[in-house]
């Protein structure tokens, strides 16, 4: 594995290898020497709390040097292109660049101009592969397997890179996915990814895991849904719509009372906080896989 940009680039063996290595890393709180002397550059062109903090801590746990940059307050504010930002920062010879960007394909652009291993931390609405991996990890830790499970992903699939990555990842490990949401928020043609779709919340009934997506206020302005109130009434995940033992997940941050009832979020069947812990282990595994066996990369001339 040279970069981690899309789940579509991975094979089942690679995914399972990463999950195994994450499981080993999750058992220790110690700082490991694997990436000593290597620089991990974190470039976030979109707001993020959990992903950026998780990558930063993962890199530090592996003894890497970490440099984090955000779009605001940087030269990006002055109109610098992504290419020039990358060419500039590449002079510090980062071994890995973790990038989140509002545009699809930004990680490929970073890879083209840097020579570092690139980890996609979210590009536009396309991919967020470490989120999908940490979700697989969380499900497997909780239910003991992935093969043959049924996962229902509920909500704004159209605008969700989390959903796109997760559908592909679940398909890779032999789990089944149903996408559930308002007709306006289920992308036309998404079934080609190998999932089913439904506009009825009842479709979550036989799912082993109900994965809830964040519902954003902006969606009402473009008439995707008439109101958050109606969305919550139709598609909100409430205790009444779940059966005991059905696991509930959410990539965060959650809107209590909109896409997810507070009682569901706080219930023992909620895996939301486990997902955060899994994020650290999985990102350590990804950085280690990409960097541990690599010589420090030369600066791109």
């Amino acid at each position, binding site marked *: 594995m040279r970069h981690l940009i899309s789940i579509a680039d991975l094979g089942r063996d690679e995914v399972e290898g990463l999950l195994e290595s994450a499981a080993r890393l999750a058992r220790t709180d110690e700082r490991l020497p694997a990436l000593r002397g290597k620089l991990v550059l974190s470039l976030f062109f979109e707001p993020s709390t959990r992903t950026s903090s998780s990558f930063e801590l993962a890199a530090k746990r592996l003894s890497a040097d970490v440099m984090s940059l955000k779009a605001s307050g940087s030269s990006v504010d002055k109109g610098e292109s*992504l290419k020039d930002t990358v060419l500039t920062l590449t002079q510090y010879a980062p071994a890995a660049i973790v990038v989140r960007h509002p545009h699809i394909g930004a990680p490929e652009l970073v890879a083209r101009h840097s020579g570092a291993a690139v980890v996609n931390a979210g590009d536009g609405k396309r991919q967020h592969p470490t989120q999908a991996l940490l979700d697989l990890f969380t499900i497997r830790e909780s239910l003991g397997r992935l093969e043959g499970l049924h996962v229902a992903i509920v909500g704004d699939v159209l605008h969700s890179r989390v959903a796109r990555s997760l559908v592909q990842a679940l398909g890779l490990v032999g789990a089944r996915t149903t996408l559930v949401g308002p007709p306006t928020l289920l992308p036309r043609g998404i079934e080609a*990814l190998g999932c089913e779709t439904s506009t009825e919340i009842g479709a979550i009934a036989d799912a082993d895991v109900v994965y809830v997506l964040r519902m954003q206020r902006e969606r009402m302005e473009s008439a995707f849904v008439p109101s958050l109130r109606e969305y919550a009434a139709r598609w909100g995940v409430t205790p009444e719509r779940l059966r005991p033992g059905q696991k509930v997940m959410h990539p965060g941050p959650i809107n209590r009372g909109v896409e997810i009832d507070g009682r569901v979020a706080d219930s023992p069947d909620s895996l939301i906080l486990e997902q955060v812990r899994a994020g650290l282990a999985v990102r350590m595994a990804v950085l280690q896989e990409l960097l541990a066996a690599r010589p420090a990369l030369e600066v791109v001339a």
Partner: protein
Amino acid sequence: MIAAIEPAPATARVLAPAFVDPHVHLRSPGREDEETIASGTAAAAAGGYCAILAMPNTDPVVDSAAVLGSLVEAARREALVPTGFMAAISKRLGGEELTEMAELADAGAAAFTDDGRPVTSAGLMRRALQYGAITGRPLALHCEEPTLSREGQMHEGAVCAELGFAPYPSVAESAMVERDLSLAAHESRPLHLMHLSARESVDALRAAHARGVRATAEVTPHHLVLTDEAVRSLDPNVKMNPPLRADADRAALVEALRDGTIACVATDHAPHSREEKEGTFEEAPFGVTGLETAFAALHTHLVEPGLLPLETLLERMSAGPARALGLPEPRVEVGARANLVLLDLEAEWRVEESGFRSRSANSWLLGERLRGAVLKTVADGRVVHG
């Protein structure tokens, strides 16, 4: 003029009437760093064209006789092949007020279009059809319903669903095509539909023809060859408006070109600077170049695989567009002004960034090998290439 094509025996050379491109962006005035009249017409000559029509979405917009007059004057000095200029339908392409169409026609406007933008208001479109009648010039329409295409980056379908781009559905084009065909029928006026991309638009056009509507249409080489699968590359050089669509759309366009429902090939040659096309797909502007590759691309991808006869392709690149836009038809004829192209059907070449006469190299064919080359072009009696 199919009968006039003369393949010389024992060689793969064909002498044919030279090509006519009804849809070129010369970027002048305003973006001479991307194209000039001189560089754009040199590209046209190299592509086998003896006449082109330039779009008015420049800076300033070609919406007054003053701007048009200065272009006509500049073309007289700079243009290597005869160049006509379209003028805007609405002032500043704003979609609100008609331009002074009669004065523009007198000043030499070849046709009227708001290309790059749709005429969003049905009311203004109707007025343009009515009032435009006095000019005797065609109306050429970019059909896009903006509330359906809004922020759209690529064709709505399985590839888009997977990649996560904002969708630009086929119906954003076909709904506007149907509106404009209805208005044309109601006003008994002709119109020309630019760069069709969707199967539904072709169906609407065919149905309108059956009702007697006088509509012509054009299709670009990229819509005839590529599909939305190409967008998986995330290459900004496959980003265009309208977007590349599904294979069923591509097949419908080829069939419509073959049977004459679509009368002409147009390149929609849209030069963009390197800087504009080297960022991400979403930040890149729409448009690709095409003048220097149109024949070779279509010969390689349609004629050689047997999807379109050579004679049909040559007709749709020459007489077809000339008739649709009211231009003189290039003929191979004793006594006629020579407008000829000499083609080598077996020559193989590689599309390279350094090989273009155009000032821009945003081609969807970079790095590809093509079969078929333009050896010589004669425009209006003058050898302009080869």
